[in-house]
């Protein structure tokens, strides 16, 4: 494979295409709402109308507006249909030549779409994730070529450092610095690991990226492998995501076939292989040392850091671990330059972030916005606020490790530091919206039950502390607790936060601490004097 071949694949793909493409979303949300049948009926309708020469039907990745699915889009006419049913298929095809359409018309100028800035999701809803040709036609693997042929590994790392990209998995560690550490660490072998163990309930950005654009992630990993000197990569994907695993495996096979993975990539000295590791239902495996233990085939229990995986990771070798969304940013940074990327977002948080808007919100789905947008803009502007005339009371970011932010603080800009300041975290990007009907103490209990069940059991504060916190919350919600119990609750939260072994234990009390802080009246109402 060389640049010429890459360009040829892209040209052949463009020549193959019909004038009009009907994009049919086949990601999980739409998939579960009959999208495959819709796609089949659309294909039938095209043949029935004798329009095969003009129109093609393509299964594409996630368009983002999952709450209005199944979604179908006519390209390049830019017409969107929502809540599509299989019976709408003939009229959708007929509408291209002026017929009436029975499907509901979506609005591409809706703030939900108009205010997004897609980088990670640039191909979402546009290309067929199961065909590498479409990814290449969209400019894919050009950045990998460029990195290998026009840049030294140090220059690649520099470019990532200058872009200001920070880890999208939650903690926000500077990506360039992590790459530089791995590159400098001593070891006869290095590994690149993609963390796709998206365990935060209410977060599905990584699933969507893997389902919609798996090659984007593989290209980012390959560029990283070149930069840090790794020859083997692993993508750790949750077992709950069978569709993502299937598409990623197809993408790996295609990339291997086109020599974009394997030996001597682009005729260079770079050898890089990627294998999938399927998770087996343990939230803690999202923690990087637990993830390593799991890839090694063991119980997913974290170990104390340092040493950090960048120095001693998989089998004791230097290991670069980044999350799916982080890797999905890399190709664009190499393609368009660090200056372009660092011009997006805020001073400390560059670029964009994908959020999953869920819960009591009108426009459920995925949005990618520049860092620094306020919570209000996201929840009310893009998300359309609470449905059925309800009032949004709070938004929970960061899953079980995050906190609840009350509506009164919705002018907070979404960046790593600002969210930490109000007692939450960026996390992986889940935003669960609560309205007046949500009881915040019950919600805290829900999260604590989650943490208790998911505690690996290694360290005492997390293993037993979460159980005792849960019991106290049960006592409170049953109306049997006294003020002394609340003091006990606070003290336990502090212990678990300060003394647990890993980040998951340390952040487990966050939902309790943040609800105690912002919704004390809901606790008070339940306490016996």
């Amino acid at each position: 494979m060389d640049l010429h071949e890459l360009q040829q694949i892209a040209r052949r793909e463009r020549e193959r295409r019909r004038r009009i493409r009907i994009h049919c979303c086949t990601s999980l949300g739409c998939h579960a709402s009959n999208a495959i049948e819709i796609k089949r009926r659309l294909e039938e309708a095209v043949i029935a109308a004798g329009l095969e020469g003009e129109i093609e039907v393509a299964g594409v990745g996630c368009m983002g507006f999952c709450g209005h699915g199944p979604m179908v889009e006519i390209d390049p006419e830019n017409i969107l249909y929502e809540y599509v049913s299989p019976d709408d298929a003939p009229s959708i095809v007929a509408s291209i030549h002026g017929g009436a359409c029975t499907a509901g018309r979506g609005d591409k100028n809706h703030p939900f779409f108009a205010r997004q800035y897609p980088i990670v999701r640039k191909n979402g809803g546009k290309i067929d994730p199961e065909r590498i040709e479409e990814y290449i036609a969209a400019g894919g693997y050009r950045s990998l070529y460029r990195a290998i042929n026009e840049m030294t590994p140090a220059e690649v790392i520099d470019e990532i450092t200058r872009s200001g990209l920070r880890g999208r998995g939650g903690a926000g560690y500077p990506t360039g610095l992590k790459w530089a550490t791995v590159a400098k660490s001593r070891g006869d072998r290095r590994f690149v690991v993609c963390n796709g163990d998206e365990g935060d309930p209410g977060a599905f950005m990584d699933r969507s990226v893997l389902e919609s654009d798996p090659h984007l992630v593989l290209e980012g990993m390959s560029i990283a492998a070149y930069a840090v000197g790794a020859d083997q990569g692993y993508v750790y994907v949750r077992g709950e995501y069978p569709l993502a695993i299937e598409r990623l495996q197809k993408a790996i096979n295609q990339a291997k076939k086109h020599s974009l993975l394997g030996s001597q990539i682009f005729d260079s000295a770079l050898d890089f292989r990627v294998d999938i590791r399927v998770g087996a239902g343990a939230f803690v495996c999202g923690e990087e040392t637990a993830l390593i233990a799991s890839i090694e085939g063991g119980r997913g229990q974290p170990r104390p850091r340092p040493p950090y995986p960048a120095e001693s990771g998989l089998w004791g070798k230097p290991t670069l671990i980044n999350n799916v969304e982080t890797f999905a940013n890399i190709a664009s940074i190499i393609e368009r330059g660090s200056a372009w990327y660092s011009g997006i977002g805020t001073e400390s948080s560059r670029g964009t972030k994908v959020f999953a808007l869920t819960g009591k919100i009108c426009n459920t789905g995925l949005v990618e916005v520049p860092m620094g947008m306020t919570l209000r803009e996201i929840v009310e502007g893009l998300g359309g606020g609470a449905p059925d005339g309800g009032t949004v009371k709070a938004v929970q970011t960061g899953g079980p490790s995050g906190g609840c932010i009350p509506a009164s603080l919705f002018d907070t800009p979404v960046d790593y530091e600002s969210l930490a300041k109000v007692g939450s975290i960026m996390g992986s990007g889940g935003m669960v919206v609560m309205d007046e009907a949500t009881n915040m103490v019950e919600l805290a209990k829900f999260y604590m039950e989650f943490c208790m069940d998911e505690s690996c059991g290694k360290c005492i504060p997390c293993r037993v502390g979460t159980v005792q916190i849960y019991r106290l919350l049960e006592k409170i919600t049953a109306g049997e607790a006294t003020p002394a119990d609340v003091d006990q609750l606070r003290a336990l939260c502090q212990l678990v936060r300060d003394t647990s072994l890993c980040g998951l234990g340390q952040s487990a009390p966050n939902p309790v601490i943040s609800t105690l802080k912002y919704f004390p009246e809901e606790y008070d109402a339940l306490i016996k004097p």
Partner: protein
Amino acid sequence: METSSVSPHMRDTSASINDNRLKILEATMKRNQYRPDALIEVLHKAQELFGFLSPTLLISVARSLHLPPSRVYGVATFYHFFSLAPQGEHTCTICLGTACYVRGANNLMVAAEGAIGVSAGKTTADGTFSLASARCLGACGIAPAVIVDGVVAGNVTPRDLSARLVALLASPSKDESRT
């Protein structure tokens, strides 16, 4: 176990040395060069083939991968995907992720428990139905979501789910229909 109405959940006990599934499992281990770090991949495969991980199966995996039995057992019980007990012929998994919770997944669980007659994590005595909960399926866009016999469904109401489960319970089992 000699009749044709053997429930699928009892399949494992009838596994013989010449069982084709054992050959497939063997091939999976061989492909992984019997490396101990392939344990989780191998357990995934074993469960896919046999429905659950029996002691015989665990011991044979331990021997092949040169792992202590306690290590294999420790891993098999750490991960919630792995089941050491037989599963029902039908399964219903209700997502209890936050988005589904906020949209009333608890009511779905109550409805399912009512329809099937067992609590989450349990299988009916006759082995026809297993009820389970999931952490988050990532199907938050269509919350609340459930998986019935491997098919994901979104925006589910308790009434729909009850009706669906009751209908499945009333339908003849796959094995009986074959005879």
